[in-house]
């Protein structure tokens, strides 16, 4: 019998569950091609892998848009690009608004608060706003960990963020390298990769993921999982396309629930030790039932409350779901 004949879930049991190593690109592809009848088995294995290598805790995060809209880049999925006729108008949040958002986030039990700006990369004004914001959050007595997502960075900016106490930085590769140029033309996948390496080098945690459902093939989903595994992020954020009015992808189909679940589980098998976070598009793609299945299929982190340009379901519904699933919320002391 050749390796190709061996059932992919048997391979995953040996390599991922027993040894804690990520599944190869070829085997991730085979997992993504499993028929619907085998989806429950795939999800169960992904859940076992998550329990064994990450544990039962779920990390909760809230996010806030500090600077919304008017971005010069052309990421085709994004309603905040200034290049597309979307209904999103530019807005800046003030410092009291940021402090309040951090407070609301902490009140849900979240340990992570991510400050996001729609920019190619930060300028001096944005960085000083972030710095003042972090100081004000700390002055309010809020000890939540702070992450940022401010686009591509220079080394100097990386060092500045590190000095501000930012402990994690989000920068998504968005999709497979071979598909990226179809999605974004104003910068390259490699430029994003460079920023990610600098973040890691500076000792900040790396959060990197992308969006499923942007016209990529199933092979490219496997390719993307392998590229993320090569990066080895502390957190992988999984978004599912919300076709945004006015963007080039406005008429794209929402990813079918079963495909989305297969993708979640396959990414868990590629990244056994990473935080795998349910992010944008969860409500539309998964609904309530699919969300629970995802939590039992490899996911161990969620964004609660609203997103940047879309609304989420109320945080208390997610918290009630976690209680029902017997999954404790990761506490701040465990993350320090």
């Amino acid at each position: 019998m050749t390796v190709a004949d061996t059932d992919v879930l048997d391979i995953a049991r040996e390599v991922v569950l027993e040894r804690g190593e990520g599944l190869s690109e070829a085997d991730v592809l085979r997992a993504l091609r499993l028929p619907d009848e085998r989806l429950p088995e795939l999800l169960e294995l992904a859940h076992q892998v998550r329990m064994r290598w990450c544990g039962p805790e779920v990390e909760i995060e809230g996010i806030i848009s500090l600077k919304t809209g008017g971005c010069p880049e052309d990421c085709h999925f994004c309603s905040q690009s200034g290049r597309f006729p979307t209904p999103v108008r530019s807005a800046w949040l003030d410092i009291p608004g940021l402090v309040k958002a951090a407070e609301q986030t902490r009140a849900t039990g979240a340990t992570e608060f991510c400050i996001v700006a729609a920019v190619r990369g930060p300028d001096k004004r944005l960085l000083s706003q972030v710095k003042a914001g972090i100081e004000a959050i700390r002055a309010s007595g809020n000890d939540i960990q702070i992450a940022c997502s401010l686009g591509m960075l220079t080394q100097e900016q990386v060092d500045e963020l590190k000095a501000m106490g930012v402990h994690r930085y989000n920068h998504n590769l968005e999709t497979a390298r071979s598909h990226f140029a179809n999605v974004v033309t104003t910068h390259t996948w490699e430029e994003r990769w460079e920023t990610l390496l600098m973040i890691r080098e500076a000792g900040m945690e790396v959060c990197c993921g992308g969006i499923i459902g942007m016209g990529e093939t199933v092979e490219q989903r496997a390719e993307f999982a392998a590229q993320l595994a090569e990066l080895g992020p502390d957190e992988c954020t999984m978004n599912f396309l919300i076709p945004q009015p006015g963007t080039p992808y406005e008429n794209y189909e929402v990813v079918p629930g079963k495909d989305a679940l297969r993708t979640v589980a396959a990414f868990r098998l590629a990244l056994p030790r990473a935080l795998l976070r349910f992010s944008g598009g969860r409500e539309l793609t998964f609904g309530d039932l699919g969300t629970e299945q995802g939590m039992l299929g490899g996911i161990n982190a969620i964004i609660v409350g609203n997103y940047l340009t879309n609304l989420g379901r109320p945080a208390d519904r997610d918290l009630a779901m976690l209680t029902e699933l017997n999954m404790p919320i990761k506490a701040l002391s465990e993350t320090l």
Partner: protein
Amino acid sequence: MTVLGVYCETCGKPQADNEHAVCRARQEINPPRYCRECRRRMVVQITPTGWSARCSVHGDIEG
């Protein structure tokens, strides 16, 4: 009671168009984007627990 207004808050087209099934279906994930009285695009700020939207003529709404 929901006051419908003249324009759809999601797509900005007249309510009378009756083509807002998708807009309504996605209301749970979309904050209002257009003023329902004058269809101006509003400045919208979303926070973890709510949103606010401002029309330069008709003022602020919140949810």
